[in-house]
């Protein structure tokens, strides 16, 4: 399989703070990969750098998407290539309605006819949002916002979908549903890379995983192997 995304010796500096310290990772086409690690490890920084949402001058190293270097692209251009991200902290457009929020997800799409259907399918997946479709994004509950963020991401029909802690603040039932949804999406052909604190569910959903610690990748393997790794078990699975 072809490498869809590849990070080569990737560093990130917030001014003088060296927060990602030369990581190498890749995601193959059609794969579902997870990135786990403690707080402040640099997961969000990595994800946002791929999407072009961090300041470009903090980057060192290369990010390849479909073999093309994209580390200098601004966010909107990266989005144009087919990379979408559900951001940490949700980042809902607070003064747009739920419906408008979703439509913004489809901003770059040309096939306007299908957008309507896709929105309906998001509503089918999250009926809660359908009830709230004309409410302003800012007044949604935390969990509702998380659903909206994921829904918005789906609407761009990306080639590569990046999810930053999708289960954050969601009720247990919904968490399960979300991961079932992610699985489905992946099976329908979208490549997925996600960051997750709930390591158990992350490792049982994804194919492969990377473990990150203070800016470095300390382990990478298939999820099955990682789950059996004693260190991972101790640090991330609470066993």
């Amino acid at each position, binding site marked *: 399989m072809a490498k869809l995304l590849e990070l080569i010796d990737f560093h990130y500096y917030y001014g003088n703070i060296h927060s990602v310290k030369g990581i190498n990772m890749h995601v193959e086409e059609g794969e579902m990969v997870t990135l*786990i690690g*403690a*707080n*402040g490890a640099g997961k969000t920084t990595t994800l946002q750098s791929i999407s072009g949402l961090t300041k470009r001058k903090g980057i060192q190293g290369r990010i390849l998407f479909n073999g093309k270097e994209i580390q200098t692209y601004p966010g909107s251009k990266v989005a144009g290539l087919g990379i979408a991200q559900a951001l940490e*902290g949700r980042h809902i457009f607070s003064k747009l309605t739920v419906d408008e929020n979703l439509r913004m997800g489809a901003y770059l799409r040309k096939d306007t006819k299908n957008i309507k259907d896709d929105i309906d399918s998001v509503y089918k997946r999250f009926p*809660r949002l359908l009830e*709230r479709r004309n*409410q302003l994004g800012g*007044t*949604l*509950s*935390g*969990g*509702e916002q*998380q*659903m909206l963020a994921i829904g918005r991401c789906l609407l761009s029909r990306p080639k590569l979908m990046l999810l930053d*802690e999708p289960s*954050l*603040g*969601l*009720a*247990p*039932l*919904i*968490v*399960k549903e979300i991961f079932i949804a992610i699985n489905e999406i992946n099976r329908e052909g979208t490549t997925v890379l996600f960051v997750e*604190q709930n*390591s*158990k569910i992350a490792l049982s959903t994804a194919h492969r995983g990377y473990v990150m610690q203070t800016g470095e990748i300390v382990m990478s393997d298939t999820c099955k192997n990682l789950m059996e790794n004693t260190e991972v078990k101790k*640090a*991330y*699975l*609470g066993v």
Partner: protein
Amino acid sequence: MLETNNVTINFGGLIAVNNVSIKVQPHKITALIGPNGAGKTTLFNCISGVYKPTSGEVILDGQHLEGKRGFQINAAGIARTYQVINLFWKMSVLENVLVGMNSRLKASFWDSLLSTKKKREEERRIHERAHELLQFVHLDEYADAPAASLSYGKQRLLEIVRGLASDPKVILLDEPAAGMNTAEKAELDILLNKIIEMGVTILVVEHDMKLIMDVSDYIYVLCNGMLLAEGDPDKIQKNPEVIAAYLGGDE
């Protein structure tokens, strides 16, 4: 000690909280759970004075709180943390805690301006106390760093001690474990118990069932703004309605 009686909150037609009565027992951890959008945060906001209840009452030790402003409620003895972390980002970690103590301070404006003895003594005292509190959650080494530079988990801890700084009778915690990994959650578990030992009562909202079932003494379940069930953790875990609406089948 803290109770709400038939609280209803209405957002222009949308009833977010519907006739909810809960009682928080002193020196216990009471939990509030429920699906997303059930109205948990809204109820918190109502207790802490962000929203006024459309009807119903909020009582702390016999004192009516409904309709009071946030700072008055804090002074009455209720502290809180937020679902979306709400720190004073550019202030240092220490200053965040000092601000938390504000409602307990005696120095007047003139004391502040003229640097009277009273003020200097008080300042010294609260600085010591703040360091103590920071040590309590192992944040002392970050005392002078700006709050924004902490990682997510540490920010949560800081929010909790900032709440504790005002010597509250009750502290309301809104999803304290969100964004924490397993190890950190375990630490949080211990911390919550320590807070109870300090004599502070806890009302907590959380989606992490493992934590909730571990720590809480009594649980209320909200669903669609209404009280669905209440009881101790064992009872709730087995309640079929709760399982259907919230917990989902076990795996």
